[in-house]
């Protein structure tokens, strides 16, 4: 009995990490743009969907190799992100928050509509990255694809840390996030940093979409919920704090998988959202931020 319990728990843990890794990456995407602009990009979930669907076409229809298809898909979504910034965010002068929110919503509707017209309404099957059978660990099974997802998350996090700490461009972006005016005075082209943030955010979203598609079978309408839960992870981790987002994303995924298993699978999707609302209402600065910093922020 006891062994059965731990096996179950382990199984849910694997499932949770697999879901949570995606939320974590979506949350990192939110944070990128938020830090550079103060905007929450409501089209973030659409980046994930586009990445996944593009990968499906590249591998299943065009039979490209995984690596090449991966690069094409990420590049495609990155271009979409750049176009979004250039065409809809950059031209807006004297933006109000309400207007920016509605603009990113409009973009999300457009991207979703485009995905539906191009890929149709059905969900798309894609083969797993490796054909190996599931691994058994203490009676629980873990899909090779889950290992891919964990590996990708690790790579993205390492890349993220390296970029923001050891490259000049990354440091410039951090400077812009901390104080845009001061960064501009120091000669940083803040407009370019905003564009870059959209590009990187789209790329991370695309990667998340690509690696999850073999498991969830992507369809055009997934963006809203993925985006919302990713935002939940960003909030729980403290908006703008990407390492917090990774921890929070994994945590949300695990709680979700656990509650799906132990409480009710019907309400599973609501759990992450309830946690998000709880944190927003009680501690909008996130669970990991210092309360001092939180008080100086505008919610």
């Amino acid at each position, binding site marked *: 009995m006891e062994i059965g319990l731990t096996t179950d728990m382990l199984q849910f843990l694997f499932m949770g990490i697999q879901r949570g890794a995606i939320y974590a990456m979506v949350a990192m995407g939110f944070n990128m743009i938020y830090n550079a602009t103060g905007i929450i990009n409501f089209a973030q979930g659409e980046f994930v969907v586009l990445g996944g669907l593009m990968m499906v076409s590249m591998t299943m229809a065009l039979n490209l190799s995984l690596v090449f298809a991966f690069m094409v898909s990420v590049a495609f979504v990155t271009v979409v992100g750049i176009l979004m910034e250039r065409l809809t965010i950059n031209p807006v002068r004297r933006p109000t928050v*309400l207007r920016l929110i*509605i603009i990113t919503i409009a973009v999300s509707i*457009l991207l*979703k509509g485009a995905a539906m017209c191009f890929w149709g309404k059905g969900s798309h099957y894609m083969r797993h990255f490796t054909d190996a059978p599931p691994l058994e660990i203490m009676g629980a099974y873990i899909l090779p694809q889950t290992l891919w997802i964990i590996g990708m998350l690790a790579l993205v996090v390492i890349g993220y840390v390296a970029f923001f700490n050891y490259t000049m461009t990354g440091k410039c972006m951090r400077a812009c996030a901390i104080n845009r005016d001061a960064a501009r005075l120091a000669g940083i082209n803040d407009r370019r940093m905003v564009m870059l943030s959209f590009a990187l955010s789209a790329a991370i979203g695309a990667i998340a979409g690509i690696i999850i598609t073999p498991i969830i079978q992507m369809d055009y309408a997934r963006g809203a919920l993925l985006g*919302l839960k990713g935002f939940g992870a960003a909030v729980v981790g403290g908006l703008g704090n990407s390492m917090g987002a990774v921890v929070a994303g994994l945590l949300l995924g695990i709680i979700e998988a656990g509650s799906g298993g132990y409480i009710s699978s019907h309400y599973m999707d609501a759990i992450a959202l309830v946690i998000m609302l709880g944190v*927003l209402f009680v501690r909008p600065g996130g669970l990991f931020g210092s309360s001092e910093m939180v008080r100086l922020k505008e919610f």
Partner: protein
Amino acid sequence: MAARDIIGFCILIALVLVMPHAVGNDYYIGVLIFAAFNCLACIGLSLLMGYAGQISLGHGAFIAIGAYASGLLTTELGWSPWTAMAAGAFAAMGIAFIVGIPALRLKGHYLAMATLGFASIIHIVAVAATDITGGPAGVLNIPRLSLFGYRLDSDTRYYYFAWTAVVIGLYLAFNLIHSRVGRGLRAIHGSEDAAGAAGINTAAYKVQVFVVSAAYASVSGSLYAYYVNYIDPGPFDVMHSVLLVTMVAVGGLHHVWGAVVGAVLLSLLPEVLSFTAGYLQVIGIQYRPDYDILVYGGILLVIMLFLPEGLFAGMIAGGKSVWNLVKRVIRGKQVVRE
């Protein structure tokens, strides 16, 4: 009520009376009835967004609450449709109150996401709580409304009824705007600090207008349920909440009339598109209804980028410049005569 609002009312009532004779087809009358439901919800949302400056991406949830309260209380408990509608409105207001107190302490993006999350939760519950809501199968055989012994069973009757509800909703909204409360809301939009210094309890006012707008949405949901006689969670997804916001934004945030214009135009849009599809086919473009969503997103984006005040403000400005042009032409002629 300002003079131009009274003119607006006259135009609206005239249009409402003329339209059934102009379209003369039950299908299009049905479309106009749906436009009325959207109008009602958007009027409430406009009070919240345009006047108090608070966004909600969760009003689809209040429509759902109204619709399900009406559907379930009439079919399961045999309540009269009117009582059920009132109960739904009170339920929506109660939930808006409970959610609004913590949610409206948030601003901008945070508030948008919190309300979106709320709407999403309500939708998930509507699908998952099969023993209460019927789940995806929904609620069947919801009765029709009766008014003073008249059963509102023809589309034309329901059309007049629904648009009367819109006119009443507008009347209440305009009274509210041109009152102490309305000024308080606009003051909050202008500067929360200054509003507080004038003795306005900003937190309470935001919750109050949220509650009022939830009541509008709930009544709109009830009217919908009594019209289609069948509800399932489908129409109450997150996208519906988003569509309501786009209607208000396209019409114009700064005026209730904007909400009316936006709701009517975007409700009619699919019909307009399928109508033009025939012409497009002539010039060789195959238009599918699937493209509707693209047109929809495109319109919203273009308006937000180039006409952020919305279509209504654009119409007013356009009308004014035409009028000025006419005046100049007339005056020019006079000069020539002299």
